């Protein structure tokens, strides 16, 4: 019996991080619910043991149902009939298995039927599901919408919608429109309050909506007539039971084919306002996007893990020139680098999830009581860290998963190009990760704030650099310190021009340099708890140092006037 949680010891390793003590404490509030719910935890050990046991269930369902279904789901895909999306057979089986196991709405409070899981084990479950089937992971992962309703919805909305998740309700976030993709401020779908009916009515088109025919949909709509920017947008919740939406079509995609991507038309569709008017994009969707980005990072890690395992298996079995191909340097280098990149992105993934856990729980706590000054400081600190780590993580993880899937296919040689091995599906599935929930280029736009504000440099210098690391790894630390100096120099070099276009031009290089240093330290720290990370940290820092050197070289030789050569000018 395959188990995608148990067979990957790195997951348990990240679950057991020392910071979990604080997270569990914040999440469980002195285990106040232990006498109220028979599945509430009694203490820290009980909570950790329960996360472990529940992840084991996730691993079991993924290894024995979702993983084996992935190929048929990819081939069959969803279809449209009588204005309804019909999932592939395997998708239905997957969803039913997870619902029956109580694994929908995992992060919701128990009063709404959830498991009250923190982000760390929830994100881990998302990674495991994604390894089994990245397309299906979207359908399952959209339970993130429940979190948004929980954070910003009224009591009435929470009571009406949240308990449905644990019973298997699916969700969608309806943001994109034909002319509002990366630029969500341009959303045009209209919401008008009908005084007679006493409700909001939605009219307009949404496009590229993942799982568009969900039971519960969050819809971004323009409520303020005459506005053209994000401040005129509000968030609504639409109930599928109202049957006031038409599905125009399901897109035919390159990858994640099991996940239905829909074009929707709302015609006088009744919907309920979530939170306050005008906060739709600037607050609620930003929050929703942040958790969705964490979700895509988990998805990227899952795809990477699956691709690496396929490549490793093939390289061990495939014999050429009288030897298994894994014995050739060109192949074993690829495989080792894949493994190192997976470990690096995973360390960044769970570090970010921990930051999100801490500030979100302080947010919830502040609804019940006034935070103490030191709690308030922590809340702010981790919120800021989450804000700069999330786009960095999404950028790195999605790009890595593409690189890993590319190499995994390469290891297969010609066989990888055929439909006979799962790696071609993984290669196609990986491709979307660096596009949706904000392209890599847009992650850089968000992450560059971490560069210009000094947030990355600050955590590198004040936290990571000050920690003590294993003596046998001390030789790596000076490298990272040197890389930090180099990074600082490059940031200064770029900022000194005081030219925003020049900054934008080099932004990705700077963000990736910071990311490399951060992941280098995280792996160094991991090596302190698990010796198998010693080699990983060594290989990664070598790779990162060389990459950063290249970027530094490019930046320091690049003058402001060089920019003109790159600009598109149709007249030349």
């Amino acid at each position, binding site marked *: 019996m395959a188990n995608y949680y148990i067979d990957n010891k790195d997951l348990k390793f990240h679950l057991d991080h020392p910071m979990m003590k604080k997270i569990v404490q914040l999440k469980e509030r002195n285990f106040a619910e232990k006498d109220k719910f*028979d*599945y509430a*935890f*009694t203490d820290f050990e009980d909570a950790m*043991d*329960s996360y472990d*046991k*529940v992840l084991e*269930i996730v691993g*079991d*369902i993924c290894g024995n149902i979702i993983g084996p279904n992935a190929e048929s789901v990819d081939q069959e895909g969803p279809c449209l009939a009588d204005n309804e999306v019909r999932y592939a057979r395997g998708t239905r089986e997957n969803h039913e*298995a997870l619902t*029956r*196991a*109580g*694994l929908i709405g*995992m992060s919701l409070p128990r009063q709404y039927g959830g*498991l009250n899981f923190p982000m760390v084990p929830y994100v881990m479950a998302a990674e495991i599901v994604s390894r089994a089937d990245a397309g299906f992971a979207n359908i399952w992962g959209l339970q993130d919408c429940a979190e948004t309703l929980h954070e910003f919805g009224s009591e009435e909305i929470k009571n009406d919608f949240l308990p449905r998740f644990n019973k298997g309700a699916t969700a969608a976030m309806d943001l994109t429109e034909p002319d509002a993709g990366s630029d969500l401020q341009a959303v045009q779908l209209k919401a008008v309050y009908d005084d007679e009916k006493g409700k909001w009515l939605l009219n307009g088109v949404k496009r590229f909506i993942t799982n568009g025919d969900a039971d519960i949909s969050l819809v971004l709509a323009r409520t303020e007539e005459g506005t053209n920017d994000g401040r005129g947008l509000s968030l609504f919740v639409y109930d599928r039971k109202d049957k006031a939406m038409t599905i125009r079509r399901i897109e035919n995609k390159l990858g994640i084919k099991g996940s239905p991507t829909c074009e929707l038309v709302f015609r006088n569709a009744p919907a309920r306002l979530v939170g306050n008017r005008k906060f739709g994009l600037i607050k609620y969707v930003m929050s929703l996007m942040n958790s969705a980005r964490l979700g895509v990072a988990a998805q990227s890690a899952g795809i990477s893990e699956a691709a690496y395992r396929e490549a490793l298996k093939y390289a061990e079995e495939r014999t050429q020139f009288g030897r298994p191909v894994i014995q050739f340097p060109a192949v074993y280098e690829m495989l080792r680098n894949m493994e190192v990149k997976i470990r690096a992105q995973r360390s960044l993934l769970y570090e970010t999830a921990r930051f999100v856990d801490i500030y979100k729980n302080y947010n919830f706590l502040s609804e019940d009581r006034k935070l103490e000054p030191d709690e308030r400081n922590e809340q702010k600190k981790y919120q800021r860290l989450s804000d700069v780590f999330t786009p960095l993580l999404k950028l790195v993880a999605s790009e890595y998963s593409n690189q890993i899937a590319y190499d995994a296919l390469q290891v297969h040689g010609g066989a990888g190009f055929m439909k006979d091995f799962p790696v071609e599906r993984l290669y196609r599935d990986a491709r979307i990760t660096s596009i949706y929930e904000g392209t890599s280029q847009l992650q850089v736009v968000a992450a560059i704030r971490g560069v210009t504000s000094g947030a990355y440099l600050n955590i590198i210098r004040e936290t990571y650099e000050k920690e003590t690391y294993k003596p046998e790894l001390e030789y790596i630390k000076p490298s990272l310190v040197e890389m930090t100096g180099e990074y600082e120099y490059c940031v200064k070099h770029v900022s000194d021009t005081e030219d925003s276009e020049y900054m934008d031009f080099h932004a990705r290089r700077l963000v990736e340099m910071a990311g490399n240093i951060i992941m280098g330290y995280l792996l160094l720290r991991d090596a302190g708890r698990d010796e198998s990370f010693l080699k990983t940290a060594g290989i990664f820092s070598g790779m990162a140092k060389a990459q950063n050197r290249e970027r530094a070289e490019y930046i320091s030789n690049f003058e402001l006037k060089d920019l003109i050569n790159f600009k598109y000018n149709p007249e030349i």
Partner: protein
Amino acid sequence: MKGFKIVLLAKQVPDTRNVGKDTMKADGTVNRAALPAIFNPEDLNGLELALRIKDKYPGTTINVLTMGPARAAEIIREAMYRGADGGYLVTDRKFAGSDTLATSYALSLAVKKLSPFHIVIAGRQAIDGDTAQVGPQVAEKLGLPQITYAEEIISTDKKEVTVKRRLERGVETVAAPLPVVITAHSSAPGCRSRHAKYTIKYKNAKSLSELQESSEDYLQLHKERPYLLIEEWSVDDIGADVGQLGLSGSPTKVKKIENVVFTSKESIVLSGEDSEVDNLMKDLIANHTIG
């Protein structure tokens, strides 16, 4: 309707589906240490049939009854993780060596102790003995109707149950009055996975022997949550006659166990002449490899 009282007969068995080279000891007995102990597969089909009744009639209770050593409490927990309400472990050294007759005698007494009940469900057979006798024998001893080879429980009310049976050449739909004993066939739906909430709720469910052996202190927890105790029943608890148990109560005697070892060492290379093929066929028929 308030639901049904269901008793599930289940057995912990060595996983004979994953037989390796260390499976048999030199003396021809099963090396249990080399095989993981698992929930007998068709008992899991039985559990799923029971859980589906519970899905439909929420007041339904499912209690697992198993006979075996202390560690067999594991399968009771496993059933609880999936939705069973509790279980009883019939355990006593005096049961050792029981054949199907003695086992069904003990189980039938234990089932009686759980009266009143509506439905007893068991797997068709266990993968270690493959006799398919215990379920039917329990029904006989309890004087109840039995439906074997069940694939689906089509309907059930307080008086009657309708069941689809999987037979060698087709299916048969039969009805029987309650209470009834049903044995589940492997073609019945596979058992659902563990439920997150039940797993958290019951992960510390322990039998008395387990509590005594454990290095951790569960006493306080078990005091607060009495439903965590898996009861153990001895010969005396079920009121059994020792003479009808164990080796003395078991007419089945194992005469001889033969250890068959397949080897691929012998190979014959044929040139393909008709006479050679002819001779090979005669040899294969003579040594019963074919025919």
